[in-house]
């Protein structure tokens, strides 16, 4: 493992993280605010002898990803909200076929064409599955450029360890902002996928990767197996906390909103308010137990999201009955900043009384 420090955009960190993780195929279609990813890939991928394909569309890109993943070759695609909507069928197929594709969504404002600013309006799509059927992606929500880099490495490892598609959910802020990033090269397990990947049936029986299960009860069995896997993944869930130990109010926020909320909280701390921040790092599996552990009597929760109320449902389900969970939605279309969170936080603190 070699490490060095670079000054990178979140989009660039995604690229270098993926390459460090041994990614050797990238398929993508341009869309703001993630164009740095295909643009940088178009030159960087060639350098490592991998393949860069500008797909005809996001539908094409996601299905190319499916094909590469079926070969057990580390591959990913990236897009932003409308493009990710177009990938939902393919993602459902990858989940159904147990294929380890990695998808990056640098989300932007919606619905529809919306705008090109930051948004967390795709939480439901990412976490509950925007495609059809009962499936889940492992969902990471990086908040820093360092995490953008690290999460790409984790994404491939989890994808291959569990044979699930992995979604990395960033936003326009993360994609466009620059920060110092310590780059490092993990050991990649080249054997991951050895027993199922396609490479030609030479000297062994043929292999089949599919999601069609027509025989009586076969699909039910398959779904049961997937659900077991999702339950088994629960220990992978992570929650990052700051200043929660003595907090009267815990703010729950993910991704860039999580770090912006941290700024607001530290401002308020300086004014004597006991406020902490809990940032789910994995959105699926959701850090249920970790949140429940925070729900001591008398403590309140405020979920802040840049959307109209999505993750708050998972927070409420996690804390059901144990604590009150208020919600503040910073609407997509407005650039978020800590000052605008102050009043909602004070309100939530006051509501306690």
């Amino acid at each position: 493992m070699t490490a060095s420090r670079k000054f990178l955009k979140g989009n660039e960190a995604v690229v270098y993280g993926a390459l460090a993780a041994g990614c050797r195929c990238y398929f993508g279609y341009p869309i703001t605010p993630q164009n740095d990813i295909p643009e940088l890939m178009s030159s960087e991928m060639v350098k490592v002898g991998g393949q860069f394909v500008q797909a005809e569309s996001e539908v094409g890109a996601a299905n190319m990803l499916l094909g590469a993943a079926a070969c057990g070759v580390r591959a990913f695609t990236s897009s932003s909200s409308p493009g990710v909507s177009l990938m939902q069928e393919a993602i459902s197929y990858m989940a159904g076929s147990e294929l380890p594709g990695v998808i990056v969504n640098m989300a932007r404002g919606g619905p529809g064409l919306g705008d090109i600013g930051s948004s967390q309006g795709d939480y439901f799509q990412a976490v509950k599955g925007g495609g059809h059927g009962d499936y889940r992606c492992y969902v990471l929500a990086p908040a820093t450029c360092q995490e953008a880099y690290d999460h790409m490495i984790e994404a491939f490892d989890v994808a291959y360890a569990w044979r699930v598609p992995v979604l990395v959910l960033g936003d326009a802020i993360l994609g466009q902002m620059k920060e110092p990033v310590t780059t490092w090269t993990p050991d990649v397990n080249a054997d991951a996928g050895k027993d199922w990947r396609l490479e030609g049936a030479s000297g062994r029986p043929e292999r089949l990767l599919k999601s069609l299960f027509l025989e009586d009860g076969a699909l039910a069995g398959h779904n049961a197996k997937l659900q077991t896997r999702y339950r088994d993944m629960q220990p992978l869930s992570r929650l990052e906390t700051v200043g929660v130990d003595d907090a009267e109010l815990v703010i729950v926020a993910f991704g860039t909103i999580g770090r912006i909320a941290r700024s607001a909280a530290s401002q308020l701390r300086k004014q004597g308010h006991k406020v902490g921040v809990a940032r789910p790092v994995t959105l699926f599996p959701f850090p249920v137990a970790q949140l429940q552990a925070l729900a001591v009597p008398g403590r309140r929760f405020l979920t802040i999201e840049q959307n109209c109320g999505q993750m708050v449902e998972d927070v409420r389900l996690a804390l059901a009955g144990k604590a009150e969970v208020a919600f503040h939605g910073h609407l997509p279309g407005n650039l978020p900043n800590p000052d605008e969170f102050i009043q909602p936080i004070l309100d939530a603190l006051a509501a306690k009384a």
Partner: protein
Amino acid sequence: MTSINLAALQQEGYTEVATLPEVLADRPMHYCPGCHHGIAHRLVAEALEELGQVERTICVSSIGCSVFIYNYMHLDTVEAPHGRAAAVATGVKRARPDAFVFTYQGDGDLASIGLAESMHCANRGEKLSIVFINNTVYGMTGGQMAPTTLPGQKTTTSPGGRCASTEGLPLKMAEIMAGLGGVAYSARVATTSLKRIVEAKKAIKAAFQCQIDGRGFGFVELLSACPTNWRMTPLQANERVEKELIPYFPLGVFKDDANDPACSVSGGDS
């Protein structure tokens, strides 16, 4: 009975002709009586074996009656979403440039929902092959109109017959493919008689050879019968291919850069 005769025959100095390729699985197929999918399967299997590709082949199955092709061939296979086989195959080939990659797709799959993926894959000159089964209907879903349905042909969604002025004319995919830059080979064949089958096999091998040689994308369109959805007996359906399909969809090789180097992909500086 079969097995008894077999042993006897072998002892008596008979040799089998046109033996079944080993890559074909020994199990009954789900296709309707007289469906040409089975004939096409055999040709693909023969071509793979004769070209020595079986062990490095990755098959991309599509959604249509032939989705179960993986039950009938001992090949590493991935199932593509409806219409996306060419995109999936692109991913497969890019990930494993050493593999022999082909898709097997119906007309609904390739020419309707998958038109963009199919054409862009061809135009990029992906080094892979597509076997395209044109039976002028959506077989699997029960006989709806396809982009290749003939004018006037009755289907479950064109009960009065396909109307050219509002539903358009059938797409001639072999010709469209031949017009694209990255395509090294494009042909249309049929499987209605031994003569046609021999031609078809030649075309499939030629298309596969393009990939083996790294010359580019190879495409073969097989005009095929779907007796069930044509509401015909297998023999009537077989005849319809000759009498109605071939006149509209002419058989032939529309592009072959092995014969005509001028057709080969050129231009570009890198």
